């Protein structure tokens, strides 16, 4: 160890991924419906794609799973919960759609209307 800067560089690297251990996270949360219906409809790859993309872009966003919310015909379902904003529900998701949501919605702040339950349901 030659300098404090060297230590801080190790620290930054080590901190990546440790954010998971903060259960008082107050930022945006993204959850994927992972009940039997969700898994059958392909929720697993959607979850993996979300986790991977969020971590690749180094976003301070928590990705988790949840149970069935009762709209099994629309699975896989992804919900985005931002502080002080209304919840956005995306339905019939795929890994490709999920990646688009990360870029447009989570990074760009623009809801991808075409995937939301309001559009797809009609």
């Amino acid at each position, binding site marked *: *160890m*030659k300098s404090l800067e060297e230590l801080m560089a190790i620290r930054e690297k080590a901190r990546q991924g440790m954010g998971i251990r903060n*259960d008082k996270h107050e930022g945006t949360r993204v959850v994927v419906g992972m009940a*039997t219906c969700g898994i059958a409809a392909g929720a697993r790859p959607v979850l993996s794609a979300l986790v991977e993309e969020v971590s690749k872009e180094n976003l301070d966003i928590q*990705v*988790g799973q949840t149970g069935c919310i009762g709209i099994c015909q629309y699975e896989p379902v992804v919900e985005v919960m931002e502080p002080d904003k209304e919840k956005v529900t995306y339905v019939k998701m795929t890994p490709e759609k999920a990646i688009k949501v990360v870029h447009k919605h989570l990074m760009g702040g623009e809801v991808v209307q075409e995937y939301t339950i309001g559009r797809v349901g009609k």
Partner: protein
Amino acid sequence: MVRSHILVCGGTGCTSSGSPAIIRALEEQLNKSGLSDEVKVVQTGCFGLCALGPIMIVYPEGTFYSMVKVGDIPEIVEEHLLKGRIVTRLVYDETVQESGEVASLDDTGFYKKQMRVALRNCGVINPEDINEYIAYDGYQALGKALTQMTPEQVIEEIKTSGLRGRGGAGFPTGVKWSFAAAQPKGQKYVCCNADEGDPGAFMDRSVLEGDPHALIEAMAIAGYAIGANKGYVYVRAEYPIAVHRLQVAIKQAKELGLLGEGIFGTDFSFDLEIRLGAGAFVCGEETALMTSIEGNRGEPRPRPPFPAVKGLFGRPTVLNNVETYANIPRIILLGAEWFNKIGTEKSKGTKVFALGGKITNTGLVEVPMGTTLREIIEEIGGGIPGGKQFKAAQTGGPSGGCIPAKHMDIPIDYDNLISIGSMMGSGGLIVMDEDSCMVDIARFFLDFTVDESCGKCTPCRIGTKRLLEMLDRITEGNGKPGDIEKMEDLCHYIKENALCGLGQTAPNPVLSTIRYFRDEYEAHIYHKTCPAKVCKSLLNYTIIAEKCTGCTLCARVCPVGAITGTVKQPHVIDHEKCIKCGACMEKCRFGAIVKE
């Protein structure tokens, strides 16, 4: 990509209740479900709530599962990690709210009033991964001290913080360091006392097991402050997990150049070695400890000269306890002002207590100095099981004394404890209820010190033995009038004349129980009764004829055939034959047998 961390306690408590098997089962099950790349299993140090082990926390949800068994693992993986449904039946019930929602662990009775400084990383990081320690600000304090502060500034910071030795005596740490720093240049040493010997105390072990790098960092800081380039950690061999983790940590620190030559690009070098103790209580005394490191029989020597002047191998030495060191990096990093705000006027910071005895939440708690015994026992400790009454708490182990119920609301700090005849000690806190006999407790601790006395000085070697003989007599019903006064005289004599801390404090349990529970001693001596019904020689088991149905069960379980009677007729116990094992009372379904 990892989306979830499972932290499983790998402290000694949870390890003995089976956490290694749980980790193996988790990894196996995750592999089977194809989740190995998404879920990371981390073995950590102690969470503190040892009574509920094995313990694990699942993040990001922060779900706290307690008393987990290997058989529960498939359900946890399938339900929680795959489907995101928390397995509520395994969740620590204090975190489950009325609505069924799972609340944060920090809001539970056990954790709410705690403040973790020394234990900050225990149960939070993987102690065998230096990167996790660094991620939680590890080694920044050492970097700051070496590159931005002079040794004098480091000592001044510790002095200002008001930190006092956590090993028991409470000597100001900064002052101790300044004595060693003031000695002429030359070979100096930094030592750590990890020879935790008090029955019931295990905070030092937990720090070593859960956060070994904190100790390494602090000892290096101490080395810089006093001008020492070599350190020794004296740890008892009965702590194999702690020793292993410390070895791993030292190796990792050396690999990153945090121990060794020219640390942080300065000309400061520091090396650390472990010395194993064989478990003699006296080796927790500082001069005996250093004698033992030197390779000699662990016996104390008179002070002065104090270790800061003439210590290990005759050189100036700073010796602190593990918990004291665990506070150092925080103080350097966050400043003396920050530390100074915690605690009472003369006792700053926090103190770790090992809760044991008759208490619901057995385990390790860290509270700000000034917290009352009532808060620790009733709120954090969850009270006494079985609706029993609190009688007293023993602090300081065999060197300390008891605190009776009337002093439950005194803010706990070094000086208050001494004023009521006890002492902080290393922080063992044994809770006793109405079923504990105070004479028997004093006898228990004396039995321990007699065993552990090194025998070098007469007051301790013979004095404690004579004390124990008197206590034995009293508990056997052979106490004589005047015994109490005789014991008091002998206690004071031992305290004044013993060579080291072991002997000087050995009479404390006797003195404090006489001070607060003299009536119990008198009952044993004058009335030949044991009010708490513990001392066997003073008890008699009797059958209440009106309640006895003559079922013959007691007669059949009695191992010595002391119970006689015919079927459906009241039975009788022969007191001459009875060995007072209590088997009959345990078996009787009608409550017909009493001890008095």
